[in-house]
């Protein structure tokens, strides 16, 4: 596999390999050097057309720990500056000799277009495209769940995970639905009907409009960020009503069974989809998700770039 564009392109075996590799690489941060020579000489470009400090820094840390050279390229809003089109950017990257481009973009499908085009030949890693997918986030989420709940199993068989919130606009939800089910977990989507896409009936998930009803059966709750703009677009009446029915407040937190964990991809709207108490509670693994993100991203970079990049076979 040359690119990481979508979880749909990864097999179950590949996904487990990424998680296992990440587990080994997590050890690196405990060694004095915190650095490996493995990707020395490789040039990795961070192409972030959408603002994101958290993901960009995570990928940058991952690349640097593997001794790759990192170039940060900000190509803000190709819609605003027509001169800086995706094609122009890609040709510039090719001229720079980029071995890989990590791209975050507001347009769904932009990484796929970059990978399919003839303008550049490096590996393309999707760091979040529009409302389509965010593969590395799903992988670090799966890694986190596995670490806490799998009890030595290599996958997530039988675990019950709920993804709660604005599924319609969430690339994190789409990637997680694909990955968690691929690894054997049972996924429930909890949202108001307006925030579930037409066509969700064909996804391998259970749908619920009632958060309280599913709480005590869950091993992990993944809260999604709800954007303030959605209220102006008539998806729900106001923030109060949303929080009342879909927010993770202390009562709901206490209704979870003892071992259950609370997750959030960040950034959080404390008080809207999740209360401060819930975010900071002992069940919350939100901060750990960020640390796991670096290891998982190191694993992705290692598996895509350390070997012979002219081979198009599977990750194995």
């Amino acid at each position, binding site marked *: 596999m040359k690119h990481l564009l979508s979880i749909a392109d990864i097999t179950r075996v590949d996904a487990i390999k990424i998680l296992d590799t990440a587990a080994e690489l997590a050890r690196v941060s405990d060694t004095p050097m915190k650095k490996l020579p493995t990707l020395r000489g490789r040039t990795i470009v961070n192409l972030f057309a959408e603002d994101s400090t958290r993901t960009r820094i995570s990928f940058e840390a991952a690349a640097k720990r593997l001794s790759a050279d990192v170039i940060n390229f900000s190509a803000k809003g*190709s819609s605003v500056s027509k001169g800086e089109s995706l094609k122009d950017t890609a040709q510039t990257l090719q001229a720079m000799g980029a071995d890989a481009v990590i791209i975050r973009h507001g*347009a*769904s*499908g932009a990484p796929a277009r970059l990978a*399919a085009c003839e303008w550049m030949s490096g590996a393309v890693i999707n760091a979040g495209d529009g*409302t389509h997918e965010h593969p590395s986030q799903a992988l670090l989420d799966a890694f986190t769940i596995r670490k806490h709940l799998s009890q030595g199993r290599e996958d997530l068989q039988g675990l019950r995970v709920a993804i709660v919130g604005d599924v319609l606009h969430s690339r994190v939800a789409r990637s997680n639905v694909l990955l968690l089910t691929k690894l054997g977990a049972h996924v429930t989507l909890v949202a108001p009907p307006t925030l579930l896409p037409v*066509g969700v009936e064909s996804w391998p998930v259970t749908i619920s409009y009632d958060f309280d009803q599913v709480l005590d059966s869950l091993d992990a709750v993944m809260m999604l960020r709800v954007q303030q703009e959605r209220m102006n677009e008539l998806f729900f009446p106001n923030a109060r009503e949303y929080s009342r029915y879909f927010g993770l407040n202390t009562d709901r937190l206490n209704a979870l069974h003892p071992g259950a964990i609370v997750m959030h991809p960040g950034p959080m709207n404390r008080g809207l989809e999740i209360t401060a108490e819930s975010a900071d509670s002992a069940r919350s693994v939100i901060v750990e998700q960020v640390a796991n993100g670096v290891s998982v991203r190191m694993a992705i970079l290692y598996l895509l770039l350390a070997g012979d990049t002219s081979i198009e076979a599977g990750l194995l």
Partner: protein
Amino acid sequence: MTTDTKKTLIKNGTLADGRVCDVLIENGLIQAVAPSLSDGDAIAFDATSMIVMSGLVDLHTHLREPGKEDSETVLSGSRAGVKGGYVALSAMANTSPVADNAGVVEQVYRLGKSAGLLDVFPIGAVTQGLEGKVLAEIGAMADSVAQVRVFSDDGNCVSDPLVMRRALEYVKKFGGVIAQHAQEPALTSGSQMNEGVVSATLGLKGWPAVAEEAIIARDVLLAEHVGSRLHICHLTTAGGVEIIRWAKARGIDVTAEVTPHHLLLTDESARSYDPIFKVNPPLRTENDVMALRHGLADGTIDIVATDHAPHPGESKECEWQEAAFGMLGLEHALSIVAATMVESGLMDWAAVQDRMSVAPARIAGYVDHGREIAVGAPAHLTVINPKASYRVDRDQLQSKSRNTPFHGMQFSARVVATFFHGHAVYQEGTIA
């Protein structure tokens, strides 16, 4: 273009009704239609095993001139048209400036005349600036040299029901027709592709079928209420076909068109995120495609119209959201109809002649077109080789633009010659 005074004898072709006949043309008119004609000083054109039908008529073409001449001009669009077998095109009004007054439609008309390859009939806007608020100078356009009879805001929907009602009433004065681009704006703001399983997976904002069907349902009832004619542009959904069928059964004077791309492609094409497949209204599901084919076959859908929409390279070589909506259509329409309708057994060549020549001419009132191939009729003819087998190459197009989604596809049937006023304006590879 003056009529050709040379004589041409099209030999041994098969007419749409199945008769094998020779057709003798002189002075731009058909002089004789019979088997085994001979004429010593006529130029012979061998049409053995070919279909000879009345020239194709397109009711929905975007020629982009005035205003967007980098993607197409009336001349280049005419060249693309004759290569596709067309002898008449209808130039949509969403040019820059908009064709909402006599001045612009007369300009387009004259450009067509000076290109001289086929008839260019300008379509006038329904509302000023296509804004959907105030009626355009419909009467003035009807009276102009261009004699406009078809009016459309295509590109935009006439969404205000009161404005649509008034437009339907107003054109009764001279027997015009309003051609509606059915798209409820409130349900399709920012929409990128058909709303369904594919859009949910791809994370692209959906364009639901109901946004098209709700307008069609409303407008057929309005047309019935005010006793006027209505034409629905580019029908794309199974539900829309059913509404048209219901309306016709009720005696409502409505006609409908379908594009070649909606007969062939589905929203699965969008999975590559290649904006060559981005079009408005969008590609729909397999179920819709089948309903459209059956609707065209049984006459619920009256005509095929290309919605030929040229765009420059930079409008398609980008991410999906940034790309322009639209596909080329003139040069491959006939091949696609042959592949989806004739080769599948849904229609015969007589039905193709009806849907692509006779019925469009009748709906728009183009009296010289869609005529029976008979003595005295203008010699507007299209010759088709049903077994020509070729592969589409986007670098070999007559259009100024390259945005064809059919690049690389293999087709069997192909236009080999187009006669306009008896002159061979297109003949395998050469344009007059």
